[in-house]
């Protein structure tokens, strides 16, 4: 199995921490990243997905939240308490992913990577998990917050 370059996923960890801290006032502590399949797959209720292309990596970045955590994050970000994921609220996961991507892109550009993204997609449901058809590795980046755990998945179609 191809290896996912650590230089590629580290900026997404830092981008996630910065985005949650600055935009939502939430401290997200990263847990140890793992390759998908090595541990039980975390379930989620909402996810933002973007396809990315670069000179070193093609694939997808997925930001996955259980319902309770997402509602907590949106409540902090918008300063109102939310009890359910409404249609009005769901694009928040795509916006956070856009911001995380923008943060990571700055670091990656400074390292000489050129990286572009597609328009994000939002997926909603109950007890969702991802299933990847790519032959490349899928890195799972888990984070702990005061509301619970969420994670970012980086799926590579052609790793370095």
């Amino acid at each position, binding site marked *: 199995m191809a290896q996912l370059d650590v230089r590629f996923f580290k900026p997404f960890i830092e981008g996630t921490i910065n985005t949650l801290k600055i935009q939502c006032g939430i401290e997200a502590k990263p847990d140890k990243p793992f390759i998908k399949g090595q541990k039980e797959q975390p379930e989620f209720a909402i996810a933002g997905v973007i396809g990315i292309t670069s000179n070193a990596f093609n694939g997808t970045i997925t930001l996955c939240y259980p319902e309770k955590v997402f509602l907590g994050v949106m409540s902090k970000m918008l300063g109102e308490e939310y009890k359910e994921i409404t249609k009005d609220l769901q694009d*928040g996961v*795509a916006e956070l992913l856009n911001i995380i991507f*923008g943060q990571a892109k700055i670091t990656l550009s400074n390292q000489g990577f050129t990286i572009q993204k597609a328009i994000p997609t939002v997926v909603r449901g109950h007890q969702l998990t991802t299933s990847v058809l790519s032959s490349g590795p899928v890195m799972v980046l888990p984070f702990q917050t005061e509301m619970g755990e969420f994670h970012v998945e980086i799926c590579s179609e052609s790793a370095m």
Partner: protein
Amino acid sequence: MFDPKTRLLVVDDMLTMRKLVSKVCKELGFTDITEAEDGAKAWEVIQAANPPIGLIISDWNMPNCSGLDFLKRVRGAGKYGKTPFIMVTAEAEQHQVVEALKAGVSNYVVKPFTADQLKDKIEAVHKKLST
């Protein structure tokens, strides 16, 4: 600071971000806030607005008409050429900032941002207008 009666136009394809920007602006005292989901809709709002829009806060990456295209359209129309225009974007590469400055942006906010950072940018634009 801007007169609270200044008509503010918030443009973003993401509803949650429009909500967030509008909330911060309400805290600053703005009472007349209109939202639009892309540059094309925002252009329609501007043309129909009477009294005119006095401040625009727009996202960069939007479908149909991007923030940059919208800015160029606003600046290209003599009537709105001096309307304060703040660009909000998640991507802040040097060439993008330069492109926005060349197109006549009044200030630039990079996501993620705190409420205080957005307030500072709005105040800076007002200060520049007043001098």
